[in-house]
């Protein structure tokens, strides 16, 4: 990152390798962690990467000294999320991997990511998806902002940057159920984006070839200044005691409309005491 000019934006995109939601997903019976077969780059993280690439393009493009770094943590296979990000357009990648990370809850995950970002940063902007599609707790971005003492702009449905004398300022829009709000924050900041913000691009042949030359830095816990019991189960503040697949819903009655299906529906609802 030393070669980037001082005015170039340094953007970190957190990406995660998650089980593909198109297939059945499982929790392992042995250690109650996610089974990561059939895994892909989290669909929701593609919006964060696309937002980073669009910001770079809006502010001078490749020649302006900006740098987009795809960052992940997880077992050896998790690097696939970074590789895919490099094909789509990230400039370089970082992979934190260590057996001790297994079983980390949100607090331990955010602790490891905070240490990692401090080690490979500084960054002007940290971008994440709105949630991982597997853990789905949405806790990690907020906890990361808290640990790094950064302004937190979560669930951004739009995102713009304006350069100024005192540095960059970001403007975002958030949609809530009953109101929309506009947000402003100085950089550095952490932003999570929704699936409404853009249409993620696909990697093209040129991107796939270019990715082969891009660097991925692989780091262990000790490289980021943490010890085994800072993370994983030992470093977590919650514990999973049991996990069981829900019994599948059994199929009920299916009828074909013969002109009275609306009435039969009301009969069914009345029978279920749902009226």
């Amino acid at each position, binding site marked *: 990152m030393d070669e980037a000019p001082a005015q170039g934006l340094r953007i970190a995109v957190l990406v995660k390798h998650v089980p593909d*939601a198109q297939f059945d997903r499982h*929790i392992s019976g042995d250690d109650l962690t996610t089974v990561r077969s059939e895994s892909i780059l989290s669909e*929701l993280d593609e919006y964060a990467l696309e937002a980073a690439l669009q910001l770079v393009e809006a502010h001078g493009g490749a020649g302006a000294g900006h740098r987009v770094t795809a960052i992940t943590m997880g077992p050896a296979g998790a690097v696939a999320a970074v590789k895919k990000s490099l094909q789509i357009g990230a400039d370089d990648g970082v992979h934190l991997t260590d057996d001790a990370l297994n079983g980390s*809850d*949100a*607090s331990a995950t955010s602790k490891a990511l905070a240490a990692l970002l401090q080690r490979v940063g500084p960054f002007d902007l940290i971008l994440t998806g*709105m949630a991982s599609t*597997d853990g*789905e*707790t*949405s*806790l990690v971005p*907020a*906890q990361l*902002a808290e*640990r790094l*003492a950064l*302004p*937190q702009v*979560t*669930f951004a449905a739009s995102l713009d940057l304006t350069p100024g004398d005192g540095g960059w300022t970001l403007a*975002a829009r958030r*949609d809530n*159920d009953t*109101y929309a*709000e*506009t*947000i*402003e*924050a100085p950089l550095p*900041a952490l932003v999570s984006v*929704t699936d*409404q913000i853009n249409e993620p691009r696909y990697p093209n042949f040129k991107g796939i070839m270019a990715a082969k030359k891009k660097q991925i830095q692989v780091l262990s816990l000790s490289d980021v200044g943490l010890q085994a019991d800072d993370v994983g189960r030992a470093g977590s*503040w*919650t*514990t*999973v005691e*049991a*996990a*069981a*697949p*829900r019994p599948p*819903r059994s*199929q*009920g009655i*299916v*009828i*074909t*409309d013969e002109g*009275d*299906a*609306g009435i*039969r*529906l*009301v009969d069914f*609802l*009345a029978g*279920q005491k*749902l*009226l």
Partner: protein
Amino acid sequence: MTTVLVFLDHAGASLAKSERELLSLGGTLGDVVVALAGDADQAYLDGVGSYGVEEVYRPDSGAVSDVLVAGKAAFLTEAVRVSGAGILLLGNSHEMKEIAARVGVRLESGVITDVVALDGDLTATKADFAGSYTVSCRVTTGVTILTVKPNTFEAVEAGLPSAPREVQIPVEIPPAVARITGRTDKPVSGRPELAEARVIVAGGRGVDGNFGPLEDLADALGGAVGASRAATDAGWIEHSAQIGQTGKTVSPQLYISAGISGAIQQKAGMQTSKVIVAINKDADSPVFEIADFGIIGDLFTVLPQATEEIRKRGL
């Protein structure tokens, strides 16, 4: 006895159902005190008091609500410290989860979201992988911080209204924050919120831009209107109506799915509903695999007929 701090941020004219659920749950766990971020009138405070709450903590400055999440998290952290609470209960919205997340880091305490059941020893039950797994988990360090799903715990009848004592909490807003610079209210539909609705009528691609028949049925049933991602992406209905993996997860008593194929994305948001009814022209739609009552037919004839029948029966 354990002190249970319940965080309320609604500050409407009266307590919302989900807020009464939180206060009721709190009452089963210990002595309930309340932290209240927004402005509230006397009737609201009396409502809080009717749950036996004797103390309400308020921030000493309205500025906590001008910044995103960080201000309320700073306030709530102090309220936990001052009250000596061992359990902190919040709602389950995105913002509530984020406030819980930051309070957790500040207090070095574990956070469990999406709680649907709670044992006496504070083992919490939640659904993972969009309802396909049931997971029981516990907070092992610090204050037990739980965000609780609406519609899962019973809201008990409160006692007589009484005025709780207000305690001002000094709050220091962190220096680097995101500020809220503007706010536009969206038009009010008059229907219940999706997360709280007992009945939801949801439409997808098959609705083809016309949610009218769904709205009529929802109104006849006192329900809310939801949508699949295909329908919100098409711009037929507000994005906030989206149910599914990237939208809301709901578990109403009755979910009526109309013109939605029921791909895994959508199933993720609704498969924990108590009763599922599906209407689709395509007999091979995956939604029929999880429906308690399925109708292969045209939603534009079936829904109006059902609405008319409900009205006819005077229900």
